[in-house]
């Protein structure tokens, strides 16, 4: 054991050493997501900016792909982080896991380089295989799809084999079953069809069942571990809550998939099924808020890691508002008919992905940093503690500001383009050039800048937090 406050890998177990690699790449990709988001946002205000060089389509694709991958890397890292703690034994097949990390990272770099340098291809199958698949969120070419599935399979093997050989916990059981869905569902997006209705039907299996079901359950498991680690919450309590959340999440989320089947050619019964079940989707998110806040209260906010605790609470509320409330606002078909395909979706998407997933990954970054520096003090009165607080304020306020800017634009679009102008292209541009829309986009840009500043401060904080700290971490209180 080296001195407190120094980054030293001997402070970590095998799985955790791998986890911090995943976290590092995740943090860099988070930066790429923001950078390309800023470029795309700027093109709404200055359409000729980078026209023909880095068009909106490319910036937007890298923006959302970087997001998917950094979140995935964050989740994978988090599971490796808790694997040995939970199972009680070293990770089975860690060497393979390490190898896959490098392959995965290299593949991501190649895919992004092709996105930026080659951009588009001829209308041939070879483009789908080598350059881009051209389907939102899963634009990655087919060779990379296969690679992703193989990487996720190895990840699944590491987790399942370690829990099987060591001991199963409730968190372990939920995570491993969830990982089956994680790679299984991805395969639903790996085929080509001319029929756009069939195409989008299965495409939503990947997008929705990942984001609104599998990922939600995964972060439910991470939250359970996070609360035990940071607050010393009791396993029996957090695992019971986890089961409740899984039941509610899958109970509403699986058939909630129907809210994407309103307008793509699918039968009318989806209007009823999708409307009903997706309206229930906020319920598990309420449960998560209650759970997190209740546990914090029981522990009198006595956490061993204030930044992580702050981000776990931000996750609970961000998930509820971003995914729950913002999703519910336009999920009923009667409203969605006017909001579908407008900036409403962008508003919801921004707050939901950040609130539900970015937050909990950041919490795990802090949990990792604490141990990496030799289990150093991270409670009240932290040296340089202003940094994590201000980065948290800037990131959250920046995101809320962007969400509001996009929401105003979305309302205006629903009203002018859809309700009044009848959804024609002339109507679309009437709405796009309206001052309310333009103002919404302007403020989105301003708050995007604030968000970027928050990111810069976050990275600075992650690099420096705990340095020169000589106090050991607070011990979590038992019981409760």
């Amino acid at each position: 054991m080296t001195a407190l406050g120094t980054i030293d890998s001997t402070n970590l177990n095998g799985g955790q050493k791998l986890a911090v690699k995943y976290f590092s790449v995740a943090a860099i990709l988070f930066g790429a997501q923001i950078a390309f988001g800023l470029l795309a946002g700027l093109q709404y205000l200055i359409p000729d900016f980078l026209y023909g060089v880095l068009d909106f389509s490319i910036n937007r694709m890298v923006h959302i792909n970087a997001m998917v991958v950094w979140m995935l890397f964050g989740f994978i890292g988090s599971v490796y982080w808790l694997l040995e703690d939970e199972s009680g034994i070293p990770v089975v097949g860690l060497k393979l896991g390490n190898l896959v990390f490098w392959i995965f990272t290299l593949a991501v770099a190649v895919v992004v380089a092709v996105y930026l340098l080659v951009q588009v291809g001829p209308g041939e199958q070879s483009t789908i295989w080598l350059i881009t698949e051209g389907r939102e969120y899963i634009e990655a070419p087919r060779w990379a799809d296969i690679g992703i599935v193989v990487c996720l399979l190895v990840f699944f093997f590491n987790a399942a084999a370690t829990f099987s050989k060591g001991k199963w916990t409730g968190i372990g059981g939920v995570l491993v079953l969830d990982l089956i869905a994680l790679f299984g569902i991805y395969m639903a997006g790996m085929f080509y069809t001319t029929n756009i209705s069939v195409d989008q039907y299965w495409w939503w299996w990947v997008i929705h069942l990942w984001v609104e079901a599998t990922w939600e359950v995964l972060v439910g498991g991470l939250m359970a571990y996070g609360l035990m680690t940071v607050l010393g919450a009791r396993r029996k309590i957090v695992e019971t809550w986890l089961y409740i959340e899984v039941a509610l999440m899958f109970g509403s989320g699986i058939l909630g998939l129907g809210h994407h089947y309103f307008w793509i050619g699918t039968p009318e019964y989806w209007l009823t099924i999708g409307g009903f079940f997706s309206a229930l989707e906020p319920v598990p998110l309420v449960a998560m808020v209650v759970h997190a806040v209740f546990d914090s209260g029981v522990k009198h906010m006595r956490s061993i890691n204030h930044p992580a605790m702050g981000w776990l609470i931000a996750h609970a509320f961000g998930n509820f508002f971003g995914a729950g409330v913002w999703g519910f606002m336009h999920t009923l078909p009667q409203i969605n008919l006017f909001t579908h395909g407008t900036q409403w979706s962008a508003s919801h998407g921004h707050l939901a992905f950040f609130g539900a997933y970015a937050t909990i990954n950041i919490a795990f970054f802090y949990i990792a940093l604490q141990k990496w520096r030799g289990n150093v003090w991270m409670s009240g009165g932290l040296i340089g503690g202003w940094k994590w607080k201000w980065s948290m304020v800037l990131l959250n306020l920046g995101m809320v500001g962007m969400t509001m800017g996009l929401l105003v634009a979305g309302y205006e679009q629903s009203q002018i383009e859809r309700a009044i102008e009848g959804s024609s292209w002339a109507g679309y541009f009437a709405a796009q050039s309206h001052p309310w829309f333009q103002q919404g986009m302007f403020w989105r840009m301003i708050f995007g800048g604030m968000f970027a500043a928050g990111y810069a401060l976050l990275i600075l904080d992650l690099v420096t937090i705990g340095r020169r700290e000589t106090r050991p971490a607070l011990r979590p209180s038992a019981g409760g």
Partner: protein
Amino acid sequence: MITDIWWASGTFWRKTAIWVTAGSFVVLVFLTLDSMSQITAGTKRVPAYSAINHRIEYRFDEKRHVQAPVIGAEEPLFGRKLTEQEAEALVGKGKLTMQAKNCMSCHTLLGNGAYYAPDLTKAWLDPFWGSREVREELMVEFIKDPSDKVHNSLGRRMPKLGVTDEEAHAIVAFLKWMSSIDTNGFPYNFKPLDQGN
């Protein structure tokens, strides 16, 4: 202790979670099988690719109270009537090109995609093209090189994406076919191009 009560016990909720998940998934599988049978090309909701041999209209359906596509009189695309196989090949080439050029990263198709450019669900029927007579040619020319064409007052332009003449024709075929899909009235209140009598 509260966790001794059956409804607050971990065991009860673990079993509930498993049954709820499995049950929901089974229901989803059955609904998927039914949906697939209803959205295969050549059904009432998703017409055969040879629909591009006909005029496509978008009319208000009094019974459903939404607009729905109507396949009208014969009106072959580019003046050439295609067999079912030829039509499928052409529409397929168009769809593939739209993926290869990443159209969805600016446009929406059936409302899904990005929001930087207009929705393409009813692109074929949009009044932007002026009249039925010039539509096909205008569409082909626009797709091949939009960079110097009039778009809007915003200055937002579609870039030239290297679409070949053959690919542009195929994209138009795909767009015409897509406009024939019954989307439960989306987009609502749409006023299509006047296609004459």
